[in-house]
Structures are given as C-alpha cells and as structure tokens.
C-alpha cells in the first residue's frame, strides 16, 4: 500500500459533477449504548467519487451500509435520488435499484455459476427478459475481463477474479451509485491491482462512487474528495492533494503518519 503513495499517480480526467444524489443529514446511530455514527452530514453529487479513510472501528463501513439500508440508523435522514431511506418497502426497493454495494468478502452466491450470479437480480427483481439479462451480464463480464469464466462457480475463481465478478454483478442492474466496502482488503497483494483497475475504469465513466479503502494510490488518482472519519464522526474532508499534503487536524496527521511511515 505504502509503495503506491511514493509516486504521485496521474490524475484521471474528470467530468463536471451533477446534482446532489446522496444526502446524509445529522445521521446518528447506536449499537446498544455505543454511539457509532455521530451527526454525519454528507452530500455526494452525481458522478462524484468519494473515498472514505479512517482507522478500523471509526464507522466508515457502517456509514456507507446505512446508505443502502444494510444498517438502520436512529436519528437524522438519508436520501438517495431524493428518496428517503427508511423501512418503507416501496422506498427501499427504489433505493436499492439505484445503489449497489461491493463487499470486502465478495459475497458471491456459491451455488450459482458466475453468469447466474449476474442474471439473478435482473431476471427476478427487475423482470428483464432472460436473453437480455444474459447479454448484459456478458457485456459487464467482458468489461471486467473475465468473460471466459462465465460458466464456472465462484469458488473456482481467485479472489481478484471473484471481486471483479462481484463488481460486474453490481453493475448488471445499472445502478447510478456504487458503494465499495473495503473491496481490496481481503485480497492477496498481487490481485489488488486488477480490481483497482476496474474501479478506475468505472470512475472514468462517471459512476458515482463512495469507497471505503486503505488504497491511498486509488484515492489520489480518482477521488474528487477524501473524507477522514474517526470515532464515529467526519473529522476532515478535502480534495486529495490538499488532504494528503496539508492535513489540518492532529488526528488526520497522526493517521497519515501511521500508515505512510513504516
């Protein structure tokens, strides 16, 4: 990880950002008595790429998991595309058609082939014709360079391949927003690159992305904004260059020191 931050990666070319698509207002969440998210305010524009950094247990994953309602929150409001994220089944269905998530441990369905993993939601949830769903699936598998594995089962693939399949699966329903929850943390070092390449490609195409990661190189290269969380709150946010070169808060300075100097 640290090696990638030695050289300044080349920035990708950015398109203009659109309207706000994700809005978190004063979001508070508790696990029992433990206050995990404290007054989170965050607005993400269409096409924006946000990278969330922070020590483990700082609430980064919990925050993005609230956006597609894998976690509930007790106070405040979250809106995706103007739709309130709450227990209302109709809202939830709409929100989840706009957002999908890529997990640390891929979470592919091991009893289905790669192709079946990709077509499951389009066919059953979004009622696409089977032929169309298959074509879309093959299109995205080619995009993540894995079309030749379409008929295998997930456990026959390497971690990097599985994560690329997971990204393709998320793309198949054509969501406007992708949430990445530490997508490279469970991968062997030699496989991180192939997954990051796919993510950079998506960033270039203008997908809205919120990524929780420890990959500083990725943050510098594609992020429009980097957010630092600690102890359940957003401590500092800035454009990547200023974020890494001129951190203001002591907590961020300490964090950057810990991850960069060893």
């Amino acid at each position, binding site marked *: 990880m640290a090696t990638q931050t030695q050289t300044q990666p080349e920035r990708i070319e950015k398109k203009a950002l659109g309207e706000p698509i994700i809005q978190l207002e004063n979001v508070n969440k508790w696990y029992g008595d433990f206050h995990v998210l404290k007054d989170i305010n965050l607005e993400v524009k269409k096409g924006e790429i946000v990278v969330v950094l922070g020590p483990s247990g700082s609430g980064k994953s919990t925050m993005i998991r609230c956006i597609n309602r894998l976690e509930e929150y007790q106070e405040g409001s979250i809106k995706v595309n103007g739709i309130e994220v709450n227990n209302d089944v109709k809202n939830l269905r709409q929100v989840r058609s706009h957002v999908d*998530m890529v997990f640390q441990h891929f979470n592919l*369905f091991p*009893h289905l082939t790669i192709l079946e993993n990709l077509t499951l939601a389009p066919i*059953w*949830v979004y009622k696409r014709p089977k032929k169309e769903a298959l074509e879309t699936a093959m299109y995205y598998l080619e995009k993540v360079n894995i079309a030749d594995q379409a008929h295998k089962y*997930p456990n026959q693939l390497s971690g990097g391949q599985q994560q690329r399949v997971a990204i393709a699966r998320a793309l198949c*329903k054509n969501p406007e927003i992708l949430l990445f929850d530490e997508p490279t943390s469970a991968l062997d070092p030699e496989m991180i690159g192939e997954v990051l390449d796919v993510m950079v490609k998506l960033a270039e195409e203008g997908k809205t992305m919120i990524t929780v990661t420890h990959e500083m190189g990725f943050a510098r290269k594609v992020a429009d904004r980097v957010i630092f969380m600690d102890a359940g709150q957003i401590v500092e946010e800035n454009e990547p260059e200023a974020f890494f070169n001129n951190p203001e808060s002591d907590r961020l300075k300490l964090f950057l020191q810990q991850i960069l100097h060893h």
Partner: protein
Amino acid sequence: MAVYPTIPPKEPPLGERGAIAWVRHNLLSSPYNIAFTILGIGILYLIIPPFVKWAFLNATWTGHSKADCHPGGACWIFIRAKLDMFFFGFYPHDQLWRPKTVIATIVALVAASKFIKGFNKLKIALIVMFPIYAYILLRGGYFGLSPVETSKWGGLLLTLVIASVGIVLSFPIGIVLALGRQSKLPIIKSMSVFYIEFVRGVPLITVLFMASVVLPLFFPEGVNFNKLARALIGITLFEAAYVAENIRSGFQAIPKGQYEAADSLGLSYWQKMGLVILPQAIKVTIPNLVGTFISLFKDTSLVMIIGLFDLLAMVTVTANDRDWLGMDTEGYVFAAFIFWIFTFSMSMYSKRLEKKLDTSKGK
C-alpha cells in the same frame, strides 16, 4: 547471492506407496493401532464364520414346508413361501398385479429420469401425477378396479407408502417451520419454536397414539377417519419438526454476507430465501436430512402399535403361522436385510447428491 536450479519431482520411497503404505499407516501405525487391528480381526472371526454357516452353508433353499428344512441352518423356504405377505401384507392375492405395477412404474420412472435432463416441466408433472396414479391403482374404486381398503395394505408396500408420504410432506412443512423460527415477527417465531420443541419432546409412539385416538375427537361424529391417514398425519407432523431443526442448522451455516448481498441486489424476502439462502442451507444439511429420513423410514415400523401391518409386523404375523412356528429369526434377518437395502441406498444417494451439488471443484 545464490541461484538454485529447479528440482524435478521424484516418486516417494517404496514403503510410502500402494498397499504396503496403506496397511502401515492404517492398521499398524502404533501399538494401540496394532492391538485394535488384532481385536477387530478377532471379533470378525467370532461373528462371520458362524453366520455364513447358518445363512448359507447349512441353509435350506428349496422345498415346500417346514419339514424340508434341516436343523442348524436357515430355512429360507419360509421367506419364499411368505414373500407376498412380506411385500404386500393382506392385499388380496388376485389383485397383487396392482401394487406390482406401481413398483414397476417407480423403477421405470427412476430409470427414465436419468435421461430427462434438469428439472423441467415434464418432471414436475410426473412428480405431481404419480401419487394420484399410485393411489387410484392401489385403492381402487375407479375405472372398474375393485376397491381395496387401506387396512388391507401391508408389508413393505405399507412401509414405503408411509415413508415416502412422510418424507415428501414433512419436507415443505419443515422448511416453513424453519423459516418461521427465523422470522422477525415474534408471534410466528414463538409459534414455530413452541411447535418444534413440543413435538421433539414427545416420543413418536405418543404422537401416533394421539393421531389415532385424539384426532378423531376433532371430527364430527360418524366421520370415520381412515387409520392409515391418521398415521400419515402423525408421522408427517412429527418429522416436520426434525426437518425444521435440520434446516435451521443449515441457515446458521450461511454467512451473513449472503443475506446482505441479496438485500443489496434488491431481492425481496421470499426471493432472498428461495433463491439464495434455502438452496445453500438445504445443500449443507443433506447429510442430516437424509439421516432424519433414514430414521423416519425405520420408525414406520412403530405403526404396528396402532394396528397397521408394516414389513416388521408382517414378520411377527407370519412367524405365528401354525405351519411355520419358530421362523422368527429368518423373518427378522430378512426384514433387517430389506430395511438395510433401502436405508443404505438412501445414504448412497445422499453422498452422490452432495458430490453433484459441490460447486467448489470443476463439474
């Protein structure tokens, strides 16, 4: 600095290959192991030769009555003479072609299923149609078939009817109960838990008694509920609780990430359970499920106590025949052999199914 050349793979040393290695590693690896090997051979020596002598060498295979049998060996003529009773109970002799046709149909369908690929509409139609077909043929009363009361059904036929109906019906009920136990709705959850724990706390004999004595109290006077149907209801409801617990253990083996991925893709509760969670949960519980079904198969012999004559009961009945007194041993060995054939096939099938559904290796 040093660079080393690539070493080509070699064969392992002689003592680590083939049969010698197997014997060394599995039978003689330690003093304890050697002692157990000797003990095992000793026990086999005490059991096998006398049994072979009784069952094969000194046995009588041909003849017509008990008088033809020589002492000191098994009298297999008894089995031959009573075979129809073991297999079909008191089913009228001139109508035996009907259960035989049903059995021939099962064999034909199983053979044919090898040639019909996948799980298509034809298969589903056959699975739905078969019980109706079998019932009409066995029970009669339609299409000019003379009616045969279910109280006349017996022997292996009855064992198979009870076991297969019990397995087929308890499976979906068990799934529903397992889902109920997982439910977030407290009423559904506590009802499922109560049902499962209650039924598991009661012996099957009690359930059968209740089904045969208590159940009729719920029906209006004059409605005479058939004895076999009562046994079927009792066994199905009993086994459903066990199936539910098996499937619940399967649910617990599924990582949380599978639920989250399904939620994240937008699947509804039923889609998530039906397409993602249940197929995996059932797959990991196959060995346990088949274990439950095997004990269900053997438990069917308990219907004897409510007056139905399954295979085991038929042995008891035929061994009391005045002409064949003292043939209990032959009868029970034969019954054990038949039970073993079925239960062993079930466990073989479960192994094959596990292998077939294993997606971690190439197909």
